[in-house]
């Protein structure tokens, strides 16, 4: 049972200190409200402070992340020991990667055919800027950010795509010197231009609060999608290179579909940060006043 709190009674000094406490607390709340308005207005206003804080603590987070990886393989080893003949955790993983790679290859083939027909344009091999571990994510906030263990000292910059072997994870939102914040695809502010891997049905993939993606077709009309369709990035907007696998359709809706993420960030250990695909196009789009949704913050 809580004891009765220290009310001031008729002591003048105590009354004054209680009053001062309330004044200070209200000033604190007002400061909070003002900062909240500023940071909703200008999301980058205090990003420096935030990245410094994450930089300072990221090494501990990285240790945790490696423990996660190690721990999982430890339990897998035990599982393999007891369930003889089922060392399939790793194989299953490999198979899954292979399946995604197959779809990716099909998509590339189709893309090549299309490009050769149109322009004869070829894009070169994309070299990753940096490799990093996913340290953690904002698991108690309504926004979906993750932290990775590579920062501006490794050459990571804003808006760069983050890719795992299974597909697209998100893009860099803020960088510290040894860590960076990734806006995951499932964040409600994230929007990626995608197309169906087998043909040219173009759409936007938006994050939904429950951790799936919403595919919104650009050409409305009869919904051509089917369950199991795989969507890859289309390269529109210039941020993401084409043909990175994004999501697989799970449920059809009126104007598109609800899709499941292919690269579940919880199951990824290492991610690579790739350069912005067409920097000139992105800069042009973001500088023009009628910029479309590629710069959504």
């Amino acid at each position: 049972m809580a004891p009765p709190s220290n009310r001031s009674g008729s002591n003048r000094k105590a009354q004054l200190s209680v009053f001062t406490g309330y004044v200070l607390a209200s000033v604190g709340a007002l400061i909070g409200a003002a900062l909240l308005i500023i940071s909703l207005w200008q999301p980058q206003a205090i990003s420096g402070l935030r990245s410094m804080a994450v930089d300072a603590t990221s090494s501990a987070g990285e240790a945790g992340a490696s423990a996660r990886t190690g721990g999982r393989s430890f339990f897998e080893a035990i599982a393999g020991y007891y369930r003889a003949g089922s060392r399939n955790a790793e194989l299953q993983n490999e198979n899954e990667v292979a399946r995604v790679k197959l779809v990716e290859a099909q998509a590339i083939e189709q893309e090549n055919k299309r490009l050769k027909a149109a322009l004869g344009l070829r894009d070169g091999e994309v070299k990753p800027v940096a490799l990093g571990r996913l340290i953690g994510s904002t698991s108690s906030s309504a926004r979906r950010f993750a932290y990775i263990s590579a920062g501006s000292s490794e050459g990571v910059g804003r808006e760069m795509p983050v890719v795992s072997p299974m597909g697209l994870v998100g893009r860099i939102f803020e960088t510290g010197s040894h860590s960076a914040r990734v806006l995951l695809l499932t964040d409600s502010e994230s929007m990626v231009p995608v197309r169906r891997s087998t043909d040219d049905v173009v759409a936007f993939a938006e994050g939904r609060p429950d951790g799936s993606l919403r595919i919104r077709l650009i050409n409305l009309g009869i919904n051509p999608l089917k369950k199991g369709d795989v969507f890859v990035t289309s390269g529109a907007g210039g941020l993401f290179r084409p043909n990175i696998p994004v999501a697989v359709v799970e449920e059809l809706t009126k104007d598109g579909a609800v899709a499941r993420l292919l690269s579940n960030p919880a199951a990824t250990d290492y991610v690579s940060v790739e350069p912005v695909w067409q920097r000139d196009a992105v800069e042009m789009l973001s500088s023009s006043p009628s910029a479309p949704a590629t710069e959504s913050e």
Partner: protein
Amino acid sequence: MIDPINPRSRQDAFGSKINRDHSPALVYGVPWISILLGSLTPLLPIIAPAPLLPPIAFVFMVAWRQLRPGLLPLWAGLPFGAFDDLFSGQPFGSGILLFSLALIGLDLLDLRFPWRGFWQDWFIASGLLAAYILLAAVFSGSQVGGEHLVTLMPQFLLSLFSYPIIARMVSQLDRFRLFRVRRLG
């Protein structure tokens, strides 16, 4: 003849009462450090597809405030909220505002209901947590619609049931905090 004194009479649960005193570093450090450590949960290797973990720092702060009114100053919401905002992914300022309002609200509640039991404390904490999770979602800058509210439910329920556990942890920490470790003279 004089009876020997009971050897336990100069001791209590917090150690010897003679020649020993509480250490100010523990008395004030333990609550602050436990709440600040609660803010570091986003660095745990849990990558959640949807908001799931309870706001640990907030639950710790409410639990400390319920157990020891007057231990945390009324303005403590400002530093706790600011530190929480650095990691939580919320826009900076949302934690400061919500933590401060919660402390002010609890203080006003103390005026109205000075004696409370654990069930009332839990009830009050669950009300605060519901308000916190809802307002944090509103302040996060994402659109809050019907389906969004549904996805907040698991987080709310987890927070609801984390309160008794954290309150128990806080009472253990409180015993540790009040050990007489400082040697006098």
